[in-house]
């Protein structure tokens, strides 16, 4: 082969035969590659499918809580007493927190928190979430957002707001920051008020927007709204008048209860001192105590009408029976029972009107202890009231089997047993409802409620007339009178137990009803430890009764039943054409 015979278009290398194994080797390699892919595909798609699916889900699917609203609390007219509103809370995520000191200083300043404390709280870098400041104002949250610090965020939380403030604080109660009822109706009806949180599973895109619903949505269930029997206007007046009286008489505390006689609804229940439920920090026990239902005391003379009612029922006396009360002192078993002033021979009517202890004792000793115990029990003393509410107490009423005659005597004018103001108000439905005791409720129901008959209508009416005399001339509580409405009630003034005996501290109370012929409301007032010299129930509690009755009946739209001297200063002239 000459040199020239080799042309550039041909290559001697190509002419040489390639061994067959080379192409086979390549094919085998490619086949192996495909096999690898197939195995991997099978591994991903079949064998470990669940794992990979799960990993996908973890990266894109989020389970989101859907918050449920806590139910609102309304008064009987639909005014809001408690409602939840969304307020911002500020949190930090220490694991991704930007620890730029100048930014953190700004943040600490906004949060009114020392920088040191802020750093302490966010020290643990493993933590994903810590609250910095909860329930802040909207503008502050906006300022924090404007700082744009990585790892600092704002989240909405629900805060309970109580527009009526301290006036209804004890009835409505309050909740913890986690929205659990702590006191009052918030606690009693916590189950109904609390809703159930819902949830949904969604796919989020990289902007954090929800793009697909995974179809496992649980709808949230909002809490039920609650309508109380409280009338916020009556409650407000009652609270204001009570507060004025407590401050005026330099008293330690006071309570007032207003009941609707027809329906057994509690229209108002207020105590002073009270608290502001919107910011319930640094509260003292004295402020928190719902005295009207948790505090029991010896009811003093307010017991006498029950003794007289029973005596009338048993036919032992008539309203005109004369009782000899002598010179105002009665020695009995080593004790002396006293009247505030000597009354001489007085009728049963006057025993109530003048509040004669001796008269009440003489009437009560004509009856067996069992009967007396019976009426006290029937009107609810010594038993916890059947009203769902926290802190209710039953007071003390010992079994008649253990009574000594002197105890029976002192019980007839209200010493030796204890009741709460709520129980006392309840017991007086006996006279307002013509011999019936009715069940009470804190929830609105607006219907006439039937009661249990304890004494006959005739005798209950007779006692009610005596109660009317108490507020009249010659009675112990002329200050209970109110313009336009006839009233009746009973004063009570009780020495407080101090140590082993009775000291010179007092409680003054007044329980009454109006209008006297057809009572619509019962108002019970208690003033604890008045220290300005006045302590008789007729002086300290009766004026609160009078003012509360005046405003409550007006709010309820009840026409006055008494003649009032008109003081209308200007009359509208008919328009002339």
């Amino acid at each position: 082969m000459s040199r020239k015979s080799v042309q550039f278009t041909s290559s001697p290398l190509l002419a040489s035969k390639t061994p067959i194994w080379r192409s086979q080797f390549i094919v085998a390699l490619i086949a192996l590659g495909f096999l690898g892919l197939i195995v991997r595909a099978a591994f991903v798609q079949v064998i470990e499918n669940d794992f990979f699916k799960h990993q996908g889900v973890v990266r894109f699917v989020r389970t989101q809580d859907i918050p449920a609203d806590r139910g609102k609390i309304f008064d009987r007219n639909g005014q809001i007493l408690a409602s939840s509103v969304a307020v911002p809370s500020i949190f930090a995520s220490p694991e991704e927190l930007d620890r730029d000191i100048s930014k953190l200083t700004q943040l600490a300043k906004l949060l009114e928190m020392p920088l040191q404390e802020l750093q302490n709280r966010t020290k643990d870098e493993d933590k994903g979430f810590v609250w910095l400041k909860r329930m802040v104002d909207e503008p502050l949250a906006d300022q924090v957002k404007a700082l744009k610090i990585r790892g600092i965020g704002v989240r909405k939380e629900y805060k309970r707001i109580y527009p009526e403030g301290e006036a209804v604080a004890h009835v409505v109660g309050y909740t913890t920051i986690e929205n659990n009822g702590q006191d009052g109706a918030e606690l009693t009806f916590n189950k109904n008020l609390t809703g159930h949180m819902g949830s949904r599973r969604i796919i989020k895109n990289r902007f954090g927007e929800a793009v697909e619903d995974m179809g496992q949505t649980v709808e949230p269930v909002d809490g039920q709204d609650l309508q109380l029997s409280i009338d916020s206007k009556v409650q407000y007046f009652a609270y204001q008048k009570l507060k004025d009286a407590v401050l005026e008489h330099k008293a330690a505390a006071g309570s007032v209860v207003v009941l609707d006689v027809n329906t057994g609804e509690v229209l108002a229940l207020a105590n002073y001192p009270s608290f502001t439920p919107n910011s319930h920090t640094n509260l003292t026990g004295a402020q928190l105590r719902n005295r009207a239902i948790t505090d029991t005391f010896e009811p003093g003379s307010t017991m006498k009408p029950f003794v007289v009612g029973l005596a009338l029922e048993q036919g032992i006396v008539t309203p005109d029976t004369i009782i000899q009360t002598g010179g105002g002192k009665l020695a009995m078993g080593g004790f002396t029972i006293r009247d505030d002033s000597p009354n001489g021979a007085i009728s049963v009517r006057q025993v109530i009107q003048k509040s004669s202890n001796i008269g009440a004792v003489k009437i009560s000793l004509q009856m067996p202890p069992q009967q007396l115990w019976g009426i006290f029990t029937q009107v609810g003393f010594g038993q916890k009231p059947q009203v769902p509410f926290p802190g209710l107490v039953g007071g003390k009423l010992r079994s008649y089997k253990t009574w000594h005659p002197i105890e029976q005597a002192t019980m007839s004018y209200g010493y030796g047993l204890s009741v709460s103001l709520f129980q006392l108000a309840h017991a007086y439905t006996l006279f307002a409802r013509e011999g019936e005791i009715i069940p009470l409720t804190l929830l609105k129901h607006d219907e006439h409620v039937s009661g249990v008959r304890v004494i006959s209508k005739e005798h209950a009416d007779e006692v009610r007339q005596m109660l009317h005399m108490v507020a009249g001339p010659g009675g112990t509580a002329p200050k209970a009178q109110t313009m336009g409405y006839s009233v009746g009630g009973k004063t009570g003034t009780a020495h407080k137990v101090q140590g082993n005996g009775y000291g010179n501290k007092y409680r003054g109370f007044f329980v009454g009803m109006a209008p006297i012929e057809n009572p619509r409301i019962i108002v019970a007032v208690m003033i604890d430890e008045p220290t300005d010299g006045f302590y008789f129930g007729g002086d300290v509690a009766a004026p609160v009764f009078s003012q509360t009755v005046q405003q409550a009946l007006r709010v309820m739209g009840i026409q006055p039943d008494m003649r009032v001297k008109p003081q209308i200063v200007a009359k509208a002239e008919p328009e002339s054409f």
Partner: protein
Amino acid sequence: MTRLNALLLIAVLCSAFYLVRTQYDSRRLYTEYDHARSEARRLDLERERLEVERRSQGTSLRVEKVAKEQLHMKNVTPAITQYVLEPNQVLANGERSTAEPLPSTPVAPTTQPRPVAPMKTQVAGSLALKNESSSRIEMP
């Protein structure tokens, strides 16, 4: 045969693209729906907040304070109230009232029971100022 295959291929491709498009639309719409829903929730919360705010501006405490301090009003008493029976109002004793209004002051002896019926109260004279939250306040 080849033609049919090509046709089916095109059909499959169309269907696949359509699926992608639908999926995209569905996600886009879901995002919009979600935005709308959270907006609704936000507005709902805002409404609730404003309602509470309105109520706190209209509590008896505030109304009385403003009425007394700024408007120099005083509390109403029965002496300066004219009580008017609504026509044909059924009284507590079952009788129907006559449409005649009562005299300017209610007159009834204390000892005689009278039917007590819910009354429409009217504050006397042209000076009357009725406040929705509190009808017991009147100009002096």
